[in-house]
């Protein structure tokens, strides 16, 4: 029985076509995987289904009737439960109250009947095998328990369709096993479950059907997963059987390290980190969400305290305590993964964003500087990156994701950094710009810039990095030399990550 059907949905954003004629059919009593690389359109699709975005064309229907939810609240009331990646609980409230937050009473001044509320909540907790007193304050639960509470909350709304966005991202393997057992039971009870994940093992473990998105289109629409193997799915996700890299492995450089961490520990929780990046070298830092990679980048920039080991820049022991110091004294730049929140100042112009790193350098004795001075320095870089903008005075929030990303790289190039840390460079940008950025990273390395590349996108990692450090639980688990052969390298990487689970 069809529980949720997405038919021919298209959606465009300024400069980007996010979804093009996408369809998906979820049936009751089945677990449906929604797969795709970063930027393939999964999250846009979820946002359309839950009413956050309106589709430009196409329809969404539940149980055969077309639905148009105006917001996630309506979607929830209509029987569509979503468990988002970020936690959406009121942590100071009890478990029971969180589950039934919208049913505390009929009127604003109704009294809350806690006894029956907790009794009701207990039912859902039992269903989820969660041995927690419903009176427990949520902030005292573990992340996995909070996740189950959110599932309980979605189910308590009589949801017959449940979407889970990367539910295992912050769970241990044991916790994931528990979650899967529960999901199977819900499936057997006739719930249609949508499952978004990056981990293919899990998908094959639990899902029956699969929809793969690539570049905003269906690579497959609700295919039977038992007819497919891992290779088929990967092929659909990345568009070819084995990633044929256009790049030959680069000769190993033996230049003196630009940045060296020895036995480094940070206040963010990193322990025993050993890492070197040499000029002209592209070092990849791979790991799952929550492994502590971006946090390591921030720690290097001085945003977390160094509590152990040493940091050396060009062989000299240093202690970096602020980004300003990292940039101006040590030539280190950082392209953030979260372009909108911390990479760019969206309400300011292209020029203001591109030149922000060099204002200090360009100012005259009075601390004054002019747009023309900045443009003289930033302009050539923007030109080199082939930035498409009506003018450098354009507000950057109006540019496409790819062009925004170019500016967030450009500001570091303008500053002439010697070490560039690039965090998830291709999130939310189109394929062409992505390829262009990969070329650019190589070009920078050829010119002697040291590069530390953080990405969860395996093909990107294998296409770009020279050698790959694998990180898990805030430690470096090992190193993989990258010879650009997709299967052996990716297997080696996954092996290092899962060592913990096996141990």
């Amino acid at each position, binding site marked *: 029985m069809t529980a949720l059907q997405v038919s021919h949905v298209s959606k465009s954003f300024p400069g980007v076509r996010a979804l093009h004629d996408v369809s998906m059919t979820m049936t009751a009593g089945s677990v449906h995987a929604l797969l795709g690389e970063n930027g393939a359109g999964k999250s846009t699709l979820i946002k359309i289904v839950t009413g956050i975005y309106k589709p430009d064309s196409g329809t969404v229907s539940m149980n055969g009737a077309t639905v148009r939810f105006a917001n*996630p*609240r309506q979607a*929830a*009331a209509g029987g569509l439960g979503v468990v*988002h990646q970020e*936690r*959406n*609980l*009121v*942590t*100071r*409230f009890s478990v029971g*109250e*969180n589950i039934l*937050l*919208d049913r*505390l*009473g009929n*009127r*604003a*001044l*109704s*009294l*809350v009947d*806690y006894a029956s509320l907790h009794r009701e909540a207990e039912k859902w907790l039992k269903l989820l095998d*969660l*041995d*927690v*007193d419903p*009176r*427990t*304050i949520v*902030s*005292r*639960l*573990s*992340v*996995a*328990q909070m996740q189950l509470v959110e599932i309980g*909350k979605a189910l308590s709304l009589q949801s017959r369709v449940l979407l889970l966005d990367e539910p295992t991202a912050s769970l241990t393997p044991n916790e994931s096993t*528990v979650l899967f057992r529960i999901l199977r039971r819900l499936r057997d009870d006739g719930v249609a479950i949508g499952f978004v994940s990056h981990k293919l093992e899990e998908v094959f473990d639990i899902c029956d059907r699969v929809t793969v998105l690539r570049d905003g289109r269906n690579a497959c629409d609700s295919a039977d997963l038992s007819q497919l193997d891992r290779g088929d799915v990967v092929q659909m996700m990345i568009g070819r059987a084995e990633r044929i890299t256009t790049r030959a492995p680069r000769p190993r450089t033996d230049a003196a390290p630009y940045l060296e961490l020895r036995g480094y520990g940070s206040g963010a*929780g990193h322990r025993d980190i050993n890492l070197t990046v040499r000029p002209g070298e592209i070092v990849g830092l791979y790991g799952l969400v929550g492994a502590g990679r971006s946090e390591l980048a921030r720690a290097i920039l001085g945003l977390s305290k160094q509590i152990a080991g040493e940091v050396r820049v060009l062989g000299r022991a240093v202690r970096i305590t602020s980004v300003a110091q990292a940039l101006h004294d040590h030539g280190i730049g950082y392209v953030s993964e979260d372009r909108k929140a911390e990479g760019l100042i969206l309400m300011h112009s292209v020029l203001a964003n591109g030149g922000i790193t060099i204002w200090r350098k360009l100012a005259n004795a009075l601390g004054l500087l002019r747009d023309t001075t900045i443009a003289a320095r930033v302009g050539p870089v923007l030109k080199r990156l082939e930035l498409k903008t009506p003018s450098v005075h354009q507000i950057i929030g109006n540019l496409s994701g790819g062009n925004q990303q170019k500016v967030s790289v450009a500001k570091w190039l303008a500053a002439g950094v010697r070490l560039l840390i690039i965090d998830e460079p291709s999130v939310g940008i189109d394929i062409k710009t992505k390829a262009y950025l990969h070329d650019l990273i190589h070009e920078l390395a050829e010119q002697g810039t040291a590069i530390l590349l953080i990405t969860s996108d395996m093909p990107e990692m294998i296409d770009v990095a020279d050698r790959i450090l694998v990180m898990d639980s805030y430690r470096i688990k090992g190193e993989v030399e990258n010879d650009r052969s997709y299967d052996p390298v990716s297997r080696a990487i996954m092996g290092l990550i899962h060592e913990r689970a096996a141990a």
Partner: protein
Amino acid sequence: MAAIRDSALTRAFDNDWIGPGLVSLIAVVAISMAQPAFLSSFNIFVLMSAISVNMVIALGQLVIIGLGQMNLALGSIGGLVAISFVGVIERYGVPVPLALAFALGIGIAAGMSSGYIIARTMISAFIITLAGLQIFKGINLGITEAQPFYGVPEAVKTFGQASVIGPLPWLMVPMMICAFAMWYVFNRMRIGRHILAMGSNPHAAELSGIDPKATIIWAHAISGLLAAIAGLMLVARLQIGQPTIGDDWLISSFAAPVIGGAVLTGGRVSVAGTFFGVVIIAIITQGLVMFNIDPFVVQIVLGALILWAVAVNRLREVRIARVQARGAGA
């Protein structure tokens, strides 16, 4: 997964009112030892009258703090209500119960209108209530031309001066009703829980099906009602309809909740803590008077108390976050 149950002890330590409660107790003991007149029944009467009015004022701000907003117009609503109450009695001879209903209605309407604009436009509560402050104050002065109304009925005057038993003033009665009601609202009523949920995590609250607009309007309406009650209590206490009522509420309305452990970003409030916050402020003010210290020092002490309370709350939040991080890691 292990079962987690909160022990009574953990809950007690999590309470916001124990710290300020102890401080109040120590302050009372210390001052009365140095100055026995502090515990004279006259002094207790004066002290309790001040505490009663200030508690209702603080509760009016506490609702909005719970929501993660602020209400600068609290005092001007109280002032407008006070002069309207006495005004309609003096000029039009309206009977007291009717005037009372009218005055409370003004308070609710004033609060609701700021709430409506904030909910509708999502412009910051600060700027909307700043405009409200000016508008209500302007209307107040426009009506009174800065002259007080003297026609306060005898019943109201008596209410403001009489004691229930011993040194305890009648004014304590409305205060205690308000305090218990607000405790009930925050802990047992849907609207109160929704206000706190909005204050702690607006995104989660909205996804859970809470109507943010209605919640904001309700909170401001309750705040307006409490401001009105406080304004009327001041009329009873001062025995005249002063247009300046409410002018000096701003600082103390924030100080007491913050001393009582409220977090200004919302979601965490304590009625009992706020009460002790009010008590601490009253004792210090009264103490300064008893020791013949310049009353303006009160301003300095109030400011310092706010900073101290903010620092304490901040430290506590940091410590809780650290404990939780450790718990999650284990």
